[in-house]
């Protein structure tokens, strides 16, 4: 299948060998020389050792998804070469350390080895500089420069910038390692450029991972309190908030468990701070009772569930979209809630802000679903994105008894037409009120009166309807009148969008219908779009087609095909296109 003018570099080795930093460094170089890049990682659940890979996809046109191929492999250990031997494309390049990979590697491709081999003694070079192997990775990236036909100037500049803070000696050592890694390759290997990308083409962009995008969006939305308990892959969001807590006046509290984390968050929100908690499915399972507490007390609450492979401990460091049904129904009883599932860095940044607004406006829990793939992939975030596009909206707040007029007793749960009762915060001058997990009357007093019960339930549930003007319909990418529609939600967005470009090469006119507002659906705006679909395939990172089930339930819509993936890995555009070609045509 023909791909864009692009290639993928994979760096493989053991955890702790600096693979992630190498990926970031290459991405920095790409940004500086005007190429697009997309970085994703694959790693097991351990701290040191094991097999880790970072993939850097590079192109001169915008790219937002992973692809399943390796053009250039830098291997830092012998094992990685065995694992990826068959994945290196024909006429690809293997970059390795001659002293570590003992296997006979040929310089030119042959029958048993379809790729070029470039062996450089990175570790020996490093030892020659300061008796340790700390600069081996620097040499390896320099060799990659030779192989790609890139000049070293940008790389040198970035190394200097990066290590200047540490010491001039470290800068100098890095530069030496860089030069020797390049020179060794130049002296011993013919030039084998297989890709020529047009540098300087990329519009300026930031590369940020999904956790950063969420954290930055939350800070922008005015999050003031966050509490969490460590769990992969949600923790980086908390770490980013904690690292910027001083500057932005945030309290980031690590709690003793997820139950405490969500309860602290509910408490802080009840008191009036915008508050956030996050976890993955296991931790979210523990949070479930307090989710209902936010529901019945009508306390605004934003929870991020960064999904990973389940059930139970499952696949701690792999991706999946299998908690959708769970979060939709989590906690006993019935109460209104919102579920959002952003599809890329910009959506993560913006939808977390919308989540805070919706939580405040309608006084209910909002769950934002991400996954390991989004949380850890370094994505393009265009520099011209309007960072201030979403204004803070806190809904109706009563600040003092004066605003109520006279000696009217404040009713926290006043019956209103839209179900939203004006909210006072504890500490508001002259106002006291009761809230609680028991069913209550308008004043928050425990009340089991059946008429009140029905009225109060109806008041709360009405909010699902009154918020509909704030709920957009799904977005269509590509032709509005396509022959085939790929239905995706959350993180599968760009793999699907890139797949329609690949299908176009086969004269198939396809488009993507992407949902990021998952619940409640804006049925009247969405139904006509579904009715227009000619042929369809739904793409989900789970085993049971959870979103397809919702489409059936709410729209009586059944996709013609479904593409379900639950091997722990994200979707690749070519994989989607191939299956559509094979099964639908």
């Amino acid at each position: 299948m023909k791909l864009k003018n692009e290639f993928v570099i994979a760096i493989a080795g053991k955890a702790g060998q600096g693979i992630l930093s190498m990926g970031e460094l290459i991405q920095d170089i790409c940004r500086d020389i005007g190429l697009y890049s997309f970085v994703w990682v694959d790693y097991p659940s351990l701290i040191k050792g094991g097999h880790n890979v970072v993939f850097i996809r590079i192109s001169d046109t915008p790219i937002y998804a992973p692809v399943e191929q390796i053009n250039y492999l830098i291997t830092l250990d012998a094992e990685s070469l065995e694992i990826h031997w068959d994945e290196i494309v024909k006429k690809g390049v293997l970059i390795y350390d001659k002293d570590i990979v003992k296997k006979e590697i040929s310089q030119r491709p042959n029958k048993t080895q379809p790729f070029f081999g470039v062996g450089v003694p990175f570790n020996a070079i490093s030892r020659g500089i300061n008796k340790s192997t700390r600069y081996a990775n620097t040499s390896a990236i320099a060799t990659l420069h030779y192989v790609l036909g890139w000049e070293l100037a940008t790389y040198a500049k970035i190394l200097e910038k990066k290590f200047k803070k540490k010491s001039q000696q470290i800068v100098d050592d890095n530069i030496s390692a860089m030069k020797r890694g390049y020179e060794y390759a130049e002296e011993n290997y013919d030039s084998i450029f297989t890709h020529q990308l047009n540098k300087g083409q990329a519009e300026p962009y930031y590369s940020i991972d999904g956790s950063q995008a969420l954290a930055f969006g939350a800070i922008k939305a005015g999050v003031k309190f966050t509490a969490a308990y460590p769990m992969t892959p949600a923790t980086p969001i908390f770490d980013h908030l904690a690292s910027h807590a001083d500057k932005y006046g945030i309290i980031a509290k690590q709690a003793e468990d997820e139950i405490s984390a969500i309860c602290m968050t509910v408490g802080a929100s009840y008191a009036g701070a915008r508050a956030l908690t996050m976890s993955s499915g296991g931790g979210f399972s523990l949070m479930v009772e307090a989710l209902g507490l936010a529901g019945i007390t009508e306390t605004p609450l934003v929870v991020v569930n960064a999904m990973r492979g389940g059930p139970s401990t499952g696949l701690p460091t792999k991706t999946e979209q299998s908690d959708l049904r769970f979060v939709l129904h989590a906690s006993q009883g019935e109460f209104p809630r919102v579920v959002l599932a952003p599809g890329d860095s910009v959506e993560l940044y913006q939808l977390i802000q919308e989540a805070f607004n919706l939580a405040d406006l309608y006084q209910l829990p909002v769950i934002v679903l991400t996954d390991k793939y989004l949380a850890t992939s370094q994505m393009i975030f265009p520099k011209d994105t309007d960072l201030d596009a979403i204004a803070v909206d806190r809904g109706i707040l009563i600040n003092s008894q004066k605003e109520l007029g006279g000696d009217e007793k404040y009713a926290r749960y006043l019956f209103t037409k839209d179900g939203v009762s004006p909210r006072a915060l504890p500490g508001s001058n002259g106002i006291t009120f009761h809230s609680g997990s028991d069913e209550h009357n308008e004043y928050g007093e425990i009340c089991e009166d059946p008429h009140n019960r029905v009225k109060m339930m109806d008041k709360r549930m009405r909010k699902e309807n009154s918020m509909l003007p704030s709920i957009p319909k799904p977005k269509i990418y590509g032709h509005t009148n396509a022959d085939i529609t790929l239905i995706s939600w959350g993180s599968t967005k760009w793999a699907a969008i890139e797949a329609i470009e690949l299908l176009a090469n086969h004269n198939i006119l396809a488009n993507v219908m992407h949902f990021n507002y998952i619940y409640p659906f804006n049925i009247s705006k969405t139904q006509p779009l579904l009715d227009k679909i000619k042929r369809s395939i739904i793409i989900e990172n789970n085993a049971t087609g959870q979103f397809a089930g919702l489409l059936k339930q709410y729209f009586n819509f059944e996709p013609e095909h479904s593409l379900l993936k639950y091997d722990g890995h994200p979707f690749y555009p070519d994989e989607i296109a191939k299956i559509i070609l094979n099964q639908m045509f």
Partner: protein
Amino acid sequence: MKPKKDLSSHYTQSTPNWCPGCGNYGIWVSLKNALQELKLPAHKVVLVGDIGCSGKLAYWTDYNGFGSLHGRSIPIAEGVKMANSDLTVIVVGGDGGLLGEGLQHFLHACRRNVNIAVILHNNQVYGLTTGQTSPTSDLGYKSSTTPEGAYETPLNPSLLALTAQATFVSAGFAGNTPHLTQIIKSAILHTGFALVDIYQPCVTYNYINTYEYYSKRVYDITTTPYKPDNRFRAMKKSMEIEGGQKFPIGILYQDKSRPSLQDNIQNRVSPLVKQSINNITVKSLFEQD
């Protein structure tokens, strides 16, 4: 917005519905007296109730009340206090919620030294669910869930709090409201985590630990030479109850020197709810990463 005035029917519980003679009344009165004597404005006080007979107290005063979840009153109170340090935050809960379902929160709040007062209604029984064995029930206590008598030794709340380095540990008796009022006042005034462990008779289910039982056994430690300034001595003092004969009431331990969570936080950030969030700029975050 004109809510109907006559909503309270017989279904509505706006005043206590504890059993006649319940120890909760003594605690209710003492807490209200303490708050009144401290002259705290009602809107600046939040009572966070656990679940059970005791927790309902949060609904039954003219102060702000938040009825939470079983075992989770402490983390909710911690969240309230962290968001708005101007509020006086008090937890009301029982031995089941605070020492059973939510024991981890209790211990971590102690070591966190979060500035809240915890009023532990310790009646050694699960009352609202009809008298089951609780974490502080005496050995051999018979109930529907332990017909042969409880095998587990009871937890000692004050000793636990001291072990987790709580900075204010005290005990009171629901049958001695003037004394209890003063202890609760001191707990509220303490800067840091404060425990008031209250011996509270359950007149319906607990026929052993009655008013009479406690009246004979409690003694005010201020009538002895005891000084609450030594953690080790306080531990020893707290262990007196384990013989079932002597129940010291009063302040067992107070450490004013350790900074509270709020002391640590407020050096860095101003009260969260007072910060404006309308025009926050984040461009620098994108630039640096």
